[in-house]
């Protein structure tokens, strides 16, 4: 029988062959027909589902508690029954049960189902056609698209971020460029000001010396010639001060300025400043008063604090009219020490106040032009204070006076009265295999800081607060190394070093003399022996000699000084100056000559240049100290450059003082000598 010969189609067969997924349900949801495609898609067989309830055949995946397929389908079918209208469901995710023959379990499919009612002419529901479109591939595709879109968006966002970063960096570069340009300009201005500052005294020196050279027929009288020489001399001194200030500034800029903390009795320092200011103050008719308790001590770099005070005091004296008064006072407040210099002078206008701490910013008025300052004093004072972690402040009123205050932070306070006690670094659960370092350091903050560095570097630490405690702990603990501060209570670091080396038990322990570079934080921490710099101030040198017991006695024998210096001019200048002060002087131009002269006829004191071409000062010290006749004669070192820690170690215990070529530092020698208790030979 063919289809052509039979005009009545086999609807059953046609339905089952439809290229779509169809189920026919009765109103009770029993499956009464199914297309082959449906069977294929659901991996089931017709015989297994016909006549069964829809949800018996296609239950939700029992393993998926969030499955909503059955609920959604039931709701849609209910709507169809109620409304007699076709109902399109949202895309459903179905877990299709796989036949056991194919491994069982469920397969995830996305279906878009439509349920349509079939009613008779009276509107009675006969069947429900359940048609499903498998949109799994479509859903998968669109999911991929979403993913791709997300990736694209991320890429776009990333590129936007990159762009922003590029813009930010180029802005940074621009502003860095600006900073460099303005720093460069500042440097140029500084250079221009500096060369002007250097040229002014140099021109005076050249001008007046030219007048004297050209005066072939002695037309100038003696007083005129002396006034020319005085101008040359004062210009030279001014030039030296300027160069020293510039060197100090550049050292600070390069981060090479050391801060050597030590106990400073403020009153002693202020008295020295007072002495230095006296001639200028007397000349200007200005009185100086110091309101400093003689007991008050602080931790500071002696030389720098003194220079700060000199700068402030000399400004105060210069800008105070005759009959005025300069007062130096202090306040040991909680947390800091304030030292102030107050005057009854001309004052500073508000517009000038903001720039007086800048380099070369001398206020351009009649009085300041008469005052030969370097223009760097206040700038340096501020930087020195900053090196101590402090600052300089100023209040001033035109016509009434000014008050400059040096503020040094609490850490610098060393009298123990208000400084919070810092506990020793107590070794906790420490690793005994780590090497032990003994820290001999009297400043608790400095010791703590060192201990922290050493601990982080893998060492155990032990702190001794004095030289004697240090010696005891060294013998008891036999540390792997010792760090040694120089200025210690009871016995100083050099003594500790000597005793450590003398004791067989401790002589092999390496000792590091700790010195700290110019880092404001670090700089606050440690102290080291101070020393002084050339050129020597004649008056100071004579004071020094008196102080070590070598005063020239009227009618008595003159004290004999041996001057050892390879620089002829300096040697002769020293000799003139000392002979003028009543000393008997002999000279040696080199180390070998010095040793011969000294041993032939031992002098009462030796002034010794450290750096000489043939036999150096170090060798002279060694040679002289080895001879019994010379072993106790005071030797004063004249250092033409800063003496390094290594140099000082070489000179350990063998010299009475190290005097360096810087006028303003020379006064400290007295304190240093007293500290060292240099024995004088009468």
């Amino acid at each position, binding site marked *: 029988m063919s289809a052509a010969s039979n005009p009545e189609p086999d609807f059953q067969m046609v339905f089952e062959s439809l290229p779509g997924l169809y189920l026919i349900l009765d109103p009770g949801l029993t499956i009464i027909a199914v297309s082959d495609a449906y069977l294929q898609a659901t991996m089931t067989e017709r015989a297994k589902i016909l006549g069964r309830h829809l949800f018996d055949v296609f239950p939700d995946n029992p393993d998926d508690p969030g499955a909503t397929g059955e609920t959604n389908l039931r709701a849609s079918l209910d709507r169809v029954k109620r409304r007699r209208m076709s109902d399109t469901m949202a895309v459903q995710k179905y877990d299709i049960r796989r036949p056991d023959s194919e491994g069982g379990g469920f397969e995830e499919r996305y279906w878009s189902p439509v349920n349509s009612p079939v009613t008779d002419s009276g509107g009675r529901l006969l069947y429900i056609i359940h048609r499903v479109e498998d949109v799994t591939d479509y859903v998968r595709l669109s999911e991929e698209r979403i993913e791709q879109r997300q990736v694209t968006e991320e890429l776009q966002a990333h590129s936007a971020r990159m762009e922003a970063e590029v813009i930010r960096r180029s802005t940074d570069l621009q502003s860095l460029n600006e900073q460099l340009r303005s720093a460069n300009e500042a440097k140029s201005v500084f250079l221009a000001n500096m060369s002007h500052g250097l040229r002014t005294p140099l*021109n005076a020196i050249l*001008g007046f010396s030219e007048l004297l050279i*050209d005066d072939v027929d002695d037309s*100038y009288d003696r007083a*005129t010639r002396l006034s*020319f020489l005085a101008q040359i001399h004062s210009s030279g001194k001014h030039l030296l001060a300027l160069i020293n200030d510039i060197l100090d500034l550049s050292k600070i800029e390069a981060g090479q300025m050391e801060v050597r903390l030590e106990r400073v009795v403020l009153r002693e320092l202020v008295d020295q400043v007072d002495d230095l200011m006296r001639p200028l103050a007397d000349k200007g008719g200005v009185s100086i008063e110091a309101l400093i308790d003689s007991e008050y001590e602080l931790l500071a770099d002696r030389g720098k604090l003194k220079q700060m005070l000199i700068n402030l005091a000399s400004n105060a004296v210069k800008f105070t009219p005759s009959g005025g008064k300069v007062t130096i006072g202090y306040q040991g407040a909680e947390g800091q020490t304030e030292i102030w210099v107050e005057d009854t002078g001309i004052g500073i206008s508000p517009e000038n106040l903001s720039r007086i701490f800048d380099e070369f910013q001398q206020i351009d*008025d009649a009085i300041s*032009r008469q005052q030969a300052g370097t223009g760097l004093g206040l700038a340096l004072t501020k930087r020195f204070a900053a090196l101590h972690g402090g600052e300089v402040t100023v209040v001033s009123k035109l016509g009434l006076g000014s008050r400059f205050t040096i503020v040094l932070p609490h850490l610098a306070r060393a009298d123990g009265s208000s400084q919070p006690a810092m506990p020793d670094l107590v070794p906790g659960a420490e690793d005994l295999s780590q090497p032990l370092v003994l820290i001999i350091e009297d400043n608790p903050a400095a010791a703590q800081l060192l201990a922290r560095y050493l601990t982080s570097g893998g060492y155990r630490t032990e702190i001794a607060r004095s030289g004697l405690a240090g010696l005891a702990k060294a013998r008891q603990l036999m540390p792997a190394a010792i760090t040694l501060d120089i200025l210690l209570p009871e016995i100083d670091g050099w003594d500790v070093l000597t005793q450590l080396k003398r004791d067989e038990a401790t002589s092999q322990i390496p000792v590091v003399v700790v010195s700290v570079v110019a880092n404001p934080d670090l700089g606050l921490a440690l102290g080291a022996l101070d020393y002084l710099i050339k050129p020597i101030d004649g008056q100071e040198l004579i004071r020094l000699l008196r102080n070590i017991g070598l005063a020239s006695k009227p009618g008595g024998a003159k004290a004999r000084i041996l001057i050892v210096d390879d620089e002829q001019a300096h040697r002769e200048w020293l000799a003139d100056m000392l002979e003028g002060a009543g000393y008997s002087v002999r000279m040696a131009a080199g180390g070998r000559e010095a040793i011969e002269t000294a041993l032939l006829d031992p002098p009462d004191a030796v002034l010794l240049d450290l750096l000489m071409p043939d036999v150096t000062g170090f060798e002279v010290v060694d040679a002289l100290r080895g001879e019994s006749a010379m072993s106790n004669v005071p030797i004063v070192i004249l250092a033409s450059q800063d003496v390094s820690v290594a140099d000082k170690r070489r000179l350990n215990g063998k010299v009475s003082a190290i005097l360096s070529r810087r006028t303003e530092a020379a006064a400290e020698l007295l304190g240093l000598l007293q500290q060292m208790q240099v024995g004088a030979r009468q």
Partner: protein
Amino acid sequence: MTGDGTLVLVVEDNSTNQLLITAILNRAGFRVRIAGNADEAMTSLTEERPDLILMDVQLPGRDGLTLTRELKANARTAAIPVVALTAHAMASDREAAFAAGCAGYLSKPIDTRTLATDLTSILATVAG
């Protein structure tokens, strides 16, 4: 002697330069009066009329060129030649000096060996 008793009023605030200029000019036979600022210069002018004014440009208070303009505007002092003395050697400084009415211009540092002859030749130019 080049100076021949000629009176020079030196307006200069720096004491070192005052001394130096005085020594140079005295040696060359000039007489010298010193003023440390513009006001002192005005006082000095009322006391004795100089043959020439050597004027430091950078004075405290009223500067040297301002003072020069005032002198040139005053019939009593307009004829006195003014020689500007400045620390700068820029062409613009020179122009500014001549614009203010200066008869000559010298830049620092002061040359001890030429200052006197420089002033003499400026005086000769003005007279001629």
